[in-house]
């Protein structure tokens, strides 16, 4: 039963994708929306069915053998266990809510059919990613979501900048994917299988803990995860990816796709436990990302970019959790993050549409009275984001992460986490104040048109808001037996102390934010206007200059290379032969000048040479 439900929930989005893609433009916007949203709704129902039918044991279904050559036997097979069920729940559940919201958000846009075709293909690919029972099929989903992300970031294709953002997102994640592919090659050659279960089974037997090969394999997989999850240094694509429609940002670039890296590492936990150094590196990268992104979020003016950096930062938390071996905590935070970040993005989308596609913080402001639903969404989502104690979902998951970090004795990561909490408070408050309070910055903000549709506008926001409170945290079932014991499960000393500490960090952040943005607003403005403050602002606004680094380190040299080789110099080399022939031709043509004297001379020359050689040979012969 469960497998049928699972397959069904995969097939429904795929079927609707095909229907939408091949309908051409025969389907009207209404029908497209109905098919697009309806199929994901049905998939969500199927997932619910699968959840109900779940017996506690993991189940596999092999549809067919993909390729079979010698040892190389990857299958098209799905495995359903707790982890994939949680992910499925997020993908179809949150996905359905976002689709529903998109029906409001995208109304009146051109190319609705294309939008839903991409979105449903994305849901399908993402489901394959989390359900795949072998790495090659996982890679199918992995690349599939990348392609959908490309198609959706560049949805507004008329603007060149959007296309380049999509291009950048695809290429940067593709660089990560190559590492993942290399990891797959290594695993296949060393272990002889791509089946995830077998790989995890066999790996400890083939590789000693901490052996070089295990480290390399884990490192390569990590490379893939970094690209997809937008962690340092492959993170530069995510802020630009906000060029897509807001529901896309909510679904792909906040709730699901960017967390695929976390899922991958959690799924291959056994491999990473064999490579403790790499696992630590995961944590360090997470910590670095969360701090860099947290600081960068402080200096953004585009509300979606603030949320994008916030996403990076939160995924950094998940990486920290992975880095200390607390896989369960990472997935927990992934879940709650999916709820509250989707809520934040959808609320932002509501604001953006209400204000006629205005998303600059400076041009918004004072909207709380006119847009109460979006305001409520931002407040609840923001509370979860800063992990407001006890009432928010984010508190429980983040607390779990910090606690595990402390239990694992990683003081550095813990401090980064706490500092990150302060930063989160700062930028969240700045964001909410910037949008909903103060003076409206533009005509659009003064006369917004709030969303009124109960079903497609209010409902998704309300449901997500509920899920972002402690209720959402309660919903999380826990994956205990699937992962090896996390460090914090044995001990319990100091947990309360940590909770107090974390709460203190949150409060400190909020208080600091309140003081800065409410009391000392003028002073703040004057600081960032000039001198070191302005330089600091620019640096943060450009997110520490990684873009420039890539531009001058990779993109420009590549362009020079392309430009330099455009003439195809190797071909020129081959053309040298033709040149020689042509020169020879020119030389010989000159002799055919029609002058009898020249011909006679040449003839005589020939005869003379023959005669002289005759003389010489005769002289030599006799």
């Amino acid at each position, binding site marked *: 039963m469960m497998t049928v439900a699972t397959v069904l929930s995969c097939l429904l989005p795929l079927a609707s994708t095909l229907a939408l893609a091949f309908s051409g433009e025969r389907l009207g916007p209404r029908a497209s929306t109905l098919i697009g949203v309806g199929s994901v709704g049905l998939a969500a129902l199927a997932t619910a069915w699968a959840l109900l039918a779940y017996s506690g044991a993991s189940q596999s279904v092999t549809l067919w053998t993909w390729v079979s050559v010698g040892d190389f036997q990857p299958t098209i097979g799905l495995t359903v266990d707790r982890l994939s069920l949680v992910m499925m729940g997020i993908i179809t559940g949150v996905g359905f809510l976002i689709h529903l919201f998109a029906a409001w958000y995208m109304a009146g846009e051109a190319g609705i059919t294309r939008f839903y075709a991409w979105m449903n293909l994305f849901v399908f690919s993402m489901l394959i990613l989390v359900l795949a029972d072998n790495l090659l099929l996982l890679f199918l989903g992995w690349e599939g979501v990348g392609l959908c992300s490309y198609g959706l970031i560049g949805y507004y294709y008329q603007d060149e900048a959007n296309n380049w953002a999509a291009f950048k997102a695809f290429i940067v994640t593709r660089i990560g994917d190559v590492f993942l592919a290399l990891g797959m090659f290594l695993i296949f050659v060393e272990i002889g299988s791509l089946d995830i279960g077998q790989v995890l089974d066999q790996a400890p037997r083939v590789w000693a803990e901490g052996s070089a090969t295990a480290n390399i394999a884990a490192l390569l997989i990590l490379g893939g995860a970094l690209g997809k999850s937008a962690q340092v240094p492959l993170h530069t694509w995510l802020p630009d990816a906000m060029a897509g429609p807001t529901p896309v940002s909510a679904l792909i670039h906040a709730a699901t796709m960017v967390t695929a890296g976390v899922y991958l590492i959690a799924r291959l936990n056994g491999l990473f436990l064999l490579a403790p150094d790499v696992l630590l590196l995961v944590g360090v990268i997470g910590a670095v990302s969360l701090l860099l992104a947290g600081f960068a979020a402080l200096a953004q003016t585009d509300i979606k970019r603030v949320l994008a950096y916030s996403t990076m930062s939160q995924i950094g938390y998940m990486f920290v959790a992975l880095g200390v071996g607390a896989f369960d905590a990472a997935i927990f935070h992934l879940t709650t993050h999916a709820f509250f970040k989707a809520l934040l993005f959808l609320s932002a989308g509501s604001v953006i549409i209400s204000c006629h596609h205005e998303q600059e913080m400076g041009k918004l402001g004072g909207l709380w009275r006119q847009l109460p639903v979006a305001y409520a969404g931002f407040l609840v989502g923001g509370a979860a984001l800063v992990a407001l104690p006890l009432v928010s979902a984010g508190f429980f998951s983040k607390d779990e992460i910090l606690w595990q970090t402390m239990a694992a004795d990683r003081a550095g990561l813990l401090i980064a986490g706490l500092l990150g909490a302060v930063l989160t408070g700062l930028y969240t408050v700045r964001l909410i104040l910037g949008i909903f309070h103060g003076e409206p910055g533009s005509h659009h903000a003064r006369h917004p048109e709030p969303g009124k549709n109960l079903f497609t506008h209010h409902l998704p926001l309300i449901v997500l808001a509920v899920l972002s409170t402690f209720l959402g945290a309660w919903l999380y079932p826990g994956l205990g037996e699937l992962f090896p014991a996390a460090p914090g499960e044995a001990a319990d000393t100091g947990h309360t102390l940590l909770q107090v500490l974390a709460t203190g960090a949150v409060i400190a952040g909020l208080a600091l934010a309140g003081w800065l943005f409410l009391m000392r607003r003028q002073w703040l403005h004057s600081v960032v206007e000039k001198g070191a403050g302005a330089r600091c602002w620019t640096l943060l606004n450009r997110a520490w200059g990684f873009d420039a680094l890539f531009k001058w380190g990779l993109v420009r040299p590549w362009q020079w290379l392309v430009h330099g080789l455009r003439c195809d110099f190797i071909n020129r080399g081959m053309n040298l032969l033709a040149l020689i022939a042509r020169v020879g031709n020119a030389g010989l043509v000159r002799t055919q*000048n*029609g*002058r*009898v*004297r020249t011909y*006679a001379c040449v003839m005589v020359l020939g005869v003379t040479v023959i005669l002289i050689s005759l003389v010489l040979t005769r002289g030599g012969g006799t």
Partner: protein
Amino acid sequence: MNGVPMEHGLVLAATLFSLGLAGLMLRRSMLFVLMSLEIMLNAAGLAFIVGSTAWNQPDGQAMFLLVITLAAAEASVGLALMIQLYQRFHSIKLDNVSRMRG
């Protein structure tokens, strides 16, 4: 020594032939080219006669007759061409007549 050594006769023929050849290569006027050809044919005939008298056989002289016929034919056709050339181009310089551009 009795009589002329055959080599001397042949060397004379070779000298005349080379002179004719040199004329052929040097001169641009068709008249001189034709005369050079006559000289060369004549040298060939001389060589035949030398051979004929050295061997004391009449066959060489028969060949000489053929050579002389050839020379006559060549001269008549060549001169006819030259007249035609002169009528068309008002020049008998072969270089001026050449139309091939290498």
